[in-house]
């Protein structure tokens, strides 16, 4: 299936050239240039409205750029959308869970939508790995926001991914949940997957990241190693 665009052919995981995206009457992204190597992790920081989510949605082929060009996993952004989606998973801030389905049913739906048939044991082990082993038969309506976040994480685990995009993965998670996220990010990196993580929190992920991008008002303000980050960048990037 992965005949093209694999890590071995040396293409970067993400390559963006002058990407702009207009949303309503504002430029959500202006002239973004970005290069992300395979198997590395990139943390995108910036205040609310800086364009973090828009950037992830453009990379995930959910938004067609208004201007500019780019490749993700070696495939062109617009024309290669289906191939890109095949290797890419996005954890959205909205979770995309169905309240009236149980946790197990939500996982089964996610697998089916990706064209996969899996046994129930597989879904149960996913639930266990996100700390919801005893909640499989409960409807999501009864879940707390932290549990929803964990289950949304679980939907990513139903398929094999070359790259994972995480939009505010720490949102509404407690200390355990945050450690769970960091554990997954570590494991993905060890397995050679590329991880893009957008957050307004400077948690473990920023320090563990290979590269950091600072966004502000849709523009790329800085692109550097975490150690090279200015404290000013972070102040601009977070109110905490």
């Amino acid at each position, binding site marked *: 299936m992965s005949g093209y665009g694999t890590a071995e052919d040396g293409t970067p995981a993400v390559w963006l050239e002058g990407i702009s995206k207009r949303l309503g009457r504002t430029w959500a992204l202006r002239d973004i240039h970005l290069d992300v190597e395979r198997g590395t992790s990139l943390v995108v920081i910036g205040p609310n409205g800086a364009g973090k989510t828009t950037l992830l949605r453009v990379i995930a082929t959910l938004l067609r750029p208004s201007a500019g060009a780019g490749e993700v996993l070696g495939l062109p952004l617009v024309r290669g959308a289906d191939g890109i989606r095949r290797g890419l998973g996005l954890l959205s801030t*909205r979770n*995309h869970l169905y309240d009236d389905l149980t946790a197990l049913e939500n996982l089964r739906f996610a697998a*089916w*939508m*990706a*064209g996969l048939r899996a046994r129930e044991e597989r879904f149960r082990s996913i639930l266990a790995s996100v700390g919801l082993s005893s909640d499989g038969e409960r409807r999501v309506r009864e879940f707390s926001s932290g549990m929803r976040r964990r289950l949304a994480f679980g939907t990513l685990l139903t398929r094999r991914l070359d790259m994972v995009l995480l939009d505010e993965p720490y949102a509404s998670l407690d200390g355990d949940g945050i450690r769970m996220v960091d554990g997954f990010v570590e494991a993905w990196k060890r397995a050679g997957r590329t991880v893009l993580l957008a957050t307004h929190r400077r948690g473990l992920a920023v320090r563990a990241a290979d590269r950091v991008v600072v966004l502000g008002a849709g523009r790329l303000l800085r692109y550097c190693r975490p150690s090279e980050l200015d404290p000013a960048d972070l102040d601009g990037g977070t109110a905490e």
Partner: protein
Amino acid sequence: MQLALRTWAILWKDMLIELRTKQSFSAMIFFAALVLFLFGFAVGPDTATLSRLGGGLLWIAIAFTGMLSLGRTFQSEEVAGGLDGLRMYPGEVRAIYLGKLLANFTFLLVLEAFLVPVAVVLLHLEPWEHLPVFVGIMLLGTFGFSVIGTFYASLTHHLRARELMLPLLLFPALVPVFLGAVNATSLALAGDPLGQIGVWIRLLISFDVIFLVLCVWIFPTVLEE
């Protein structure tokens, strides 16, 4: 194969949600019955007039009630956080349309299973003589309604004034299917005295096929952002 699995996933999911939130469904049946009552008041109690207009009145009731159910097609996705949830999976995007179309079709058929008997009683309809033909016409008309309706529901679902825009775009496009369904139904109810029913059924089939091909073809563009 993958298209079938994805289509089935959406149908399964929407039906499951529908089964677990029966309130809105029962409310919709009562709305449909209410519409039929209003027709009765508007037309008057004369049995002959009511049964002569029966086919048309039945389809107007279906169109109005169906409009409400179409508006809900993408509501479950909005509650879950928007269509991105479906769009981010790999695979044929048309599966989303086909799944939603089959869900709407199934939902409307179940609705009609309640609505038609009520209409038969209230409007003094006589479908018995041509019952298989009558059922076939209901299936064809409902399918055409679902094909066009699901398409425009997907186009208007995130518009600010979608309650207004859906009927504004849908009803003109629906004219051929509506004319076909109403005339075929009326003829079936009247016992098809002139043997014209075959023409309408063939037209209805062609309209269903034309619109299905057109909507399936253009659908991926609808979901872009």
